[in-house]
């Protein structure tokens, strides 16, 4: 990482191409805020970056305990990076529990900055340490900086007159100050932010400001660090950027989709981690004509959204896996009614309550098949936090054009992770054409014009969307099988078979309306790495590393999981081996094997965190060094 050395203000300044920093502390220590602020400073400075918050499901686990540790990892770089980094180069540990749960990830020879005030006997015992790791030599091999952050914060805050108990809470800003000096970050954004965030509490503004400045000055004057570091701005393409999390991008994508379609956005939702921020964000944007309805449960959230769609709105529901379980019946009804509905699943570890705050990709088969009967639903997945914006628009486009529920599969990593995102030009976003039925489409035997709700568009197989309030198009829809065309209740066996095929063909036909999947294969590889969703960053970085080792590997990544891109079968046929890294037991691989009879190899990751680049790199290298199975003429 280290590239060059310079001097500024009498200090040695080393230039790094990238660095991975993890802030770890107790849930009450404000580590998410600290990480978030460091990220904001770096974004404004112009680095490329990627973040990985990691927090417990409990709001406040007992202070100082291992389950109470909350962490935030950020990679900043002078070049285009794709992940928050495999292992931190720097670990900031605010207490022994944070040290114990995180030090195993720290890179060999990495920098460890600890709040030495927190390493008292009681805290050490709570973290399960028999002896003080700062003193017993177990941390040899790391560069350790012991800084009494609590007492220095208290001292810095003395002029405010705040009680020590309150002043101590500013120690995260002291830590942020140290890191801001160490990495030569701009400080204005943080100072402005403190003023805006805590403006109603002048004492808190003052304490946090003093602590932040004290930390910064400590770095500069304590002569503890032999050098500070610079990570130059990244060469992002020209344009306007903002740092964005997946949840924010997804919410904004839904706002954009409704505008592009000229429809009211109706969100029916019930709070659930890690999807609640979608509800929070959209609830703030009511002046866009958005209705956000916090329902009594996920059944009602999805139901209300479907009811709104029946009325001509863009119905959306946002949830995580357990909510999808409850919504299955409503999604099935939407399949039968053939009405638009965007179902956002921000996936988390399962089964059952599982790992509420940790990402997983284990709802793919749920999205594909988690309903009774033959109930096909299109599935779309974003690949990065910023990509959630475009993916949301795409999900809405398909839902509206084909009158179908659509799954949008995000996950906890995309949801809370962030990256610089090039703000799109609103005028360049393609409109979503929506036409409501306005006139009869059928002639009764006696010649009377009437409206049949299940007459299909021959190209899309979508049925007309006739909304209440339209005279002459009164009709009834329902979950009972309908006669092709008239939509009347029908138990006729031939009709049911026909309708089942029609619904399946409608969804399958979307393949003609989505982009082909591109393969990145510069030198004719034999192995293809195929991914979907949030594995994109780690997989792409792993592929780069393999190529840097002068081995050949191809890569493709799926946005559309159902239907799959029209050229996928042909593409898969070009490779002798296919590796699919997934944060599940092999759900995409199951689909690929079933559809294309390809003997795909699964790399499974179920550790409640995204893949590390090294994990995928190793799997690729292993496959490249093991002989491929004999060609059997598949």
């Amino acid at each position, binding site marked *: 990482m280290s590239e060059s050395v310079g001097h500024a203000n009498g200090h040695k300044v080393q230039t790094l191409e990238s660095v991975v920093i993890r802030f770890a502390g107790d849930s009450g220590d404000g580590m998410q805020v600290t990480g978030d602020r460091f990220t904001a400073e770096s*974004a*404004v400075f*112009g680095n490329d970056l990627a973040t990985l918050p990691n927090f417990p499901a409990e709001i406040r686990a007992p202070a100082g305990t291992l389950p109470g540790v909350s962490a935030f990892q950020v990679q900043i770089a002078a070049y285009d990076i794709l992940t928050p980094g495999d292992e931190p180069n720097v670990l900031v540990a605010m207490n022994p529990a944070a040290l114990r749960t995180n030090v195993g990830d720290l890179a060999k020879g990495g920098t460890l900055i600890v709040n030495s005030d927190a390493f008292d006997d009681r805290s050490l015992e709570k973290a399960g340490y028999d002896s003080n790791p700062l003193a017993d030599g177990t941390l040899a091999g790391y560069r350790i900086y012991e800084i009494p952050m609590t007492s220095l914060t208290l001292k810095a805050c003395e002029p405010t007159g705040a009680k020590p108990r309150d002043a101590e809470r500013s120690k995260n800003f002291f830590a942020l100050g140290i890191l801001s000096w160490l990495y030569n970050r701009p400080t204005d*954004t943080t100072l402005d932010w403190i003023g805006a965030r805590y403006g109603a509490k002048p004492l808190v503004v003052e304490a946090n400001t003093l602590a932040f400045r004290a930390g910064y000055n400590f770095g500069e004057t304590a002569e503890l660090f032999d050098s500070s570091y610079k990570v130059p701005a990244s060469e*992002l393409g*020209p*344009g*306007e*950027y*903002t*740092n*964005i999390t997946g949840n*924010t991008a997804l919410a*904004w994508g839904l*706002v954009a989709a409704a*505008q592009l379609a000229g429809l009211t956005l*109706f969100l*029916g939702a019930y709070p659930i981690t890690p999807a609640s921020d979608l509800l929070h964000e959209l609830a703030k*944007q*009511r*002046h*866009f*004509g*958005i*209705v956000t*309805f916090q*329902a*009594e449960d996920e*059944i*009602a959230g999805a*139901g*209300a959204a*479907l*009811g*709104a769609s*029946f*009325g*001509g*709105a863009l*119905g959306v529901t946002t949830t995580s896996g357990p909510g999808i379980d409850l919504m299955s*019946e*409503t999604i099935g*009804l939407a399949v039968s*009614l053939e009405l638009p509905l965007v179902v956002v699943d921000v996936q988390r570890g399962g089964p059952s309550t599982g790992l509420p705050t940790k990402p997983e990709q284990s709802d793919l088969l749920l999205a594909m098949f988690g309903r009774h009967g033959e109930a096909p639903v299109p599935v779309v997945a974003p690949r990065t936090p910023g990509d959630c914006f475009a993916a949301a628009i795409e999900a809405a486009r398909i839902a509206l054009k084909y009158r179908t529920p659509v799954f949008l599969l995000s996950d906890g990593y995309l949801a809370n992770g962030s990256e610089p995102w090039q*703000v799109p030009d*609103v005028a360049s976003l393609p409109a979503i054409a929506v036409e409501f039925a306005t006139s009869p489409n059928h002639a009764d035997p006696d010649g009377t014009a009437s409206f049949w709700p299940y007459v299909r568009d021959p190209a899309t197989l979508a049925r007309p969307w006739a*909304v*209440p*309030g*339209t*005279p*002459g198009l*009164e009709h*009834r*829809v*329902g*979950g*009972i099988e309908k006669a092709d065309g008239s939509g*009347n*209740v029908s138990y006729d066996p031939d009709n049911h078979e026909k309708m089942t095929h029609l619904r399946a063909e409608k969804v399958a036909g979307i393949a003609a309306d989505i982009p082909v999947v591109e393969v990145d294969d510069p030198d004719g590889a034999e192995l293809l790495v195929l991914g979907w969703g949030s594995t994109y960053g780690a997989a792409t970085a792993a592929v780069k590393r393999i190529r840097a080792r002068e081995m050949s590997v191809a890569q493709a990544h799926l946005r559309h999981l159902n239907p799959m891109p029209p050229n996928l079968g042909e593409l898969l046929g070009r490779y002798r081996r296919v590796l699919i890294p997934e944060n599940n037991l092999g759900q995409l691989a199951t689909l690929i094997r079933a559809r294309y009879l390809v003997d795909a190899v699964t790399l499974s990751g179920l550790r409640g965190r995204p893949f590390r680049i090294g994990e995928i790199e190793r799997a690729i290298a292993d496959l490249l060094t093991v002989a491929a199975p004999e060609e059997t003429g598949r």
Partner: protein
Amino acid sequence: MTDTAAATSRKDWVSDQEVRWCPGCGDYSILAAMQLLLPELGAKRENTVFVSGIGCAARFPYYMNTYGMHSIHGRAPAIATGLALARPDLDVWVISGDGDALSIGGNHLIHALRRNVNFTILMFNNEIYGLTKGQFSPTSEVGKVTKSSPFGSLDTPFNPLSVALGAEASFVARTHDLDRKHIMEVFRRAYEHEGSAFVEIYQNCNVFNDGAFEKVSGKDVRAEMLIPLEHGRPIRFGSEGEHGIALRSDGTLEIVEVAAVGEDALLVHDETRENPGLAFQLSRIARGPYEPTPIGVFRDVSRPHYGALLEAQTAGISSKKGTGDLAALLRSGTTWTVS
């Protein structure tokens, strides 16, 4: 809701679908009452939507020549909530039964009522599961012998009106399937109410629970067993109006003989009482449809409905923030430019 609609007649509201309820089912008279009432109200077919769940009653939308949705068991209030909020211009009716509304859909019912969503919920109560062929329902009496309770059911039933009142309903009424005029009057009142209106309809299932309400609504006993509630009038019943309801000194209600206590001692019915306590007591004066049972409007209070609150709040936000600007939203965080 309704303006100068072209006059319609019953046949305009009848769909082309064959009605498939059992011959003799109480649902027929409710359907007829609705098809007669809507022309009287001057309602517009295109602005009328019936949303139902699952059960015998839930087939109702198929028979109305309006917009309609036959949805999922118990979920009609939730689905109709989304429709009513997205489209405040529509007349939305929810059609439900005792199993649909009080068993599988109990949660949605109470939440719709407390929010005061602007729609009317009609609950056809036959005290039995009809479509699944005769199991006890959440309104069946204790000890009900059915296929699923051959030794008698153990479950204490719900009192639907007590549930609705407990759920903060702003309009609560009861009617029965043997009195078309009364149904039409109660439905009219429900239609005119702004906010959630909950109507329980005693409905006979002549196949699986025949005669469940005979003891109160049978033609020959009706005068003695049904207590008509009329706003602003003393509550009295009996063929000569000889019985009445009075308030005891301990605050509970009792049935009295008018001759013994005098008319001034009778409770004067007030639908608009803010406190639902007396309405709640009225809802429980009969322990079941075998004791004198009040019918009519129990409660009709004015409170802003959810859609109106939503609209007002949205207007307030928009006047403060202006109409949403997407380009500005995308730049609402810190931005920087790379040239």
